[in-house]
């Protein structure tokens, strides 16, 4: 069953064609990677899916409906969550509050009810707290719940971003360079974490430059170069694809 498909997705910034007619599909329950040299347009594809950037042309289908044109918070409510290439936590808020911010879209009571602290609201908040702590345990950060997010070590901040994204109850989780800045040990742990996320029936779509990580964790890979898809297949096939090798090794010639 397809969870996400992109059809002819195109985005230009001024004269630069960042994404040129990208078409791809992702099956539910898989871990899929998007790789390619810097500037290939990978992050723009992610921004197009989450609604932060509006496409010039093409469509994004998620769970059988078109989602391009929706606002980011609406896309989140439908079940797409993401993390960022450069960490974007709320550094001054506590670890727990960061995760709770991800629960915001799943709350049913409105502004006034939240002020009046009605019984229904209290019960909801109790459940929400429990859920948030479970997400922290899931990524192994439960002990740090009271600390300001900005005080965590880099690798922990990356895992906290994942917990915050999971708190939105996504069906599709988008990770933009999750292993970026992590050491080998942390990256090895991340492999396990991503697999456990998949085991919760959350489809994972990720960008990553660490090829060892990508080859280990992904079921399927898409390769982008200069805004277009140039290859798609299982990690093994991609590794030996001449166009991919060309794209990575011949970067200098292509960029100049």
């Amino acid at each position, binding site marked *: 069953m397809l969870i996400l498909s992109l059809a002819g997705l195109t985005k230009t910034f001024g004269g630069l064609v960042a994404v040129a007619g990208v078409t791809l599909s992702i099956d539910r329950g898989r871990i899929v990677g998007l790789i390619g040299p810097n500037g290939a347009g990978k992050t723009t594809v992610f921004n197009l899916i989450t609604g*932060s950037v509006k496409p010039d042309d093409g469509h994004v289908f998620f769970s059988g409906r078109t989602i391009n044109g929706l606002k980011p918070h609406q896309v989140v409510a439908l079940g797409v969550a993401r993390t960022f290439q450069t960490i974007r936590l*709320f550094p001054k808020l506590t670890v727990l509050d960061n995760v709770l911010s991800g629960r*915001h879209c799943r709350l049913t009571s409105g502004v006034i009810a939240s002020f009046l602290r009605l019984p229904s609201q209290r019960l909801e908040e109790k459940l929400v707290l429990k859920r948030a702590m479970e997400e922290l345990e899931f990524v192994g950060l439960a002990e740090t719940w009271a600390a300001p997010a900005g005080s965590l070590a880099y690798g922990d901040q990356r895992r906290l971003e994942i917990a915050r994204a999971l708190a939105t109850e996504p069906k599709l989780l988008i990770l933009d360079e999750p292993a970026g800045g992590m050491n080998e040990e942390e990256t090895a742990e991340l492999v396990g974490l991503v697999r456990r996320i998949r085991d919760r029936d959350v489809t994972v779509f990720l960008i990553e430059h660490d090829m060892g990580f990508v080859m280990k964790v992904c079921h399927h890979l898409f390769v982008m170069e200069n805004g277009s898809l140039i290859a798609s297949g299982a990690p093994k096939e991609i590794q030996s694809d001449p166009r991919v090798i060309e794209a990575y090794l011949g970067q200098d010639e292509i960029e100049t």
Partner: protein
Amino acid sequence: MLSHFFEQIIYGLTVGGVYALIALGYTMVYGVMKLINFAHGELFTLGAFVGFFFLVTLDLGSFWGPVLAISLTVVGVSGITALAGRLLERVAYRPLRDSDRLAAVVSALGASIFLQNLIMVVSGAKYRAFGVDLLPTTFIQFAGQSVPVARLFVFLTAVVTMLLLYVFINNTRFGLAIRAAAIDQGAARLMGVDVNKVIAVVFVIGPALGGLAGLLVGVYYGQINFDMGQLYGLKAFTAAVIGGIGNIPGAMIGGLLLGLLETLGAAYVSGAWKDALSFVALILILVIRPTGILSERVAEKL
């Protein structure tokens, strides 16, 4: 001597409470939008005039008695100023959300001039007097001193309102959404926070508090004028900067401090230098600690 000093303290806290209420509007809007809403002082004036309309023009008090009349006026004033704030955001700020910061500042100044003139055209340039004492003129004994009940009323109203706001921001989920949006709007959006709704709520609460402050000043001093919001707005802005703009407890403390500084300065230095003292304080803060007294200094991580 001591009783004179005590009186100044009470007076300072009264004025300061009003400054703090107005300052909250500046600081909340700045916190979420990084914009100084220069038209905020005019929303304060609007609050005073709406209060005048309810209490004097309609003379609600003689129909329903003072308690019901005041409660109804409070609801009316906060409702109407909140609506005006919401409209202001839609008309003057939202269309400029993605443009240059300077464009929004110019728009804010324009909105301020427009609103001030609108109030003048509608209600005239004369001072308006409430005529009757709406607040009790009695005194109560406190720690061996007599304290005017009217001042206590203004101060307590300000404090209770601020406490409610503090609880809302820090202990409710929507408050958390506001805090998240204040740190990183983009990330908040991608975590499912409807940032437009956050901005709308901020532009409802801030103006309502400002309007309420206008009502308090109106009933306390007994007279209002179309440009009263200018000086109050500037003072409250100063209070917000002193406390650390964008910081909610900072606005509360900055307002109270500025009120105390002003009244003690007027009493012991010179009444004529009252305003100068406030703005000297602003300059000193900007030079010595531009982030305000309450802002924590966290080394920015790269």
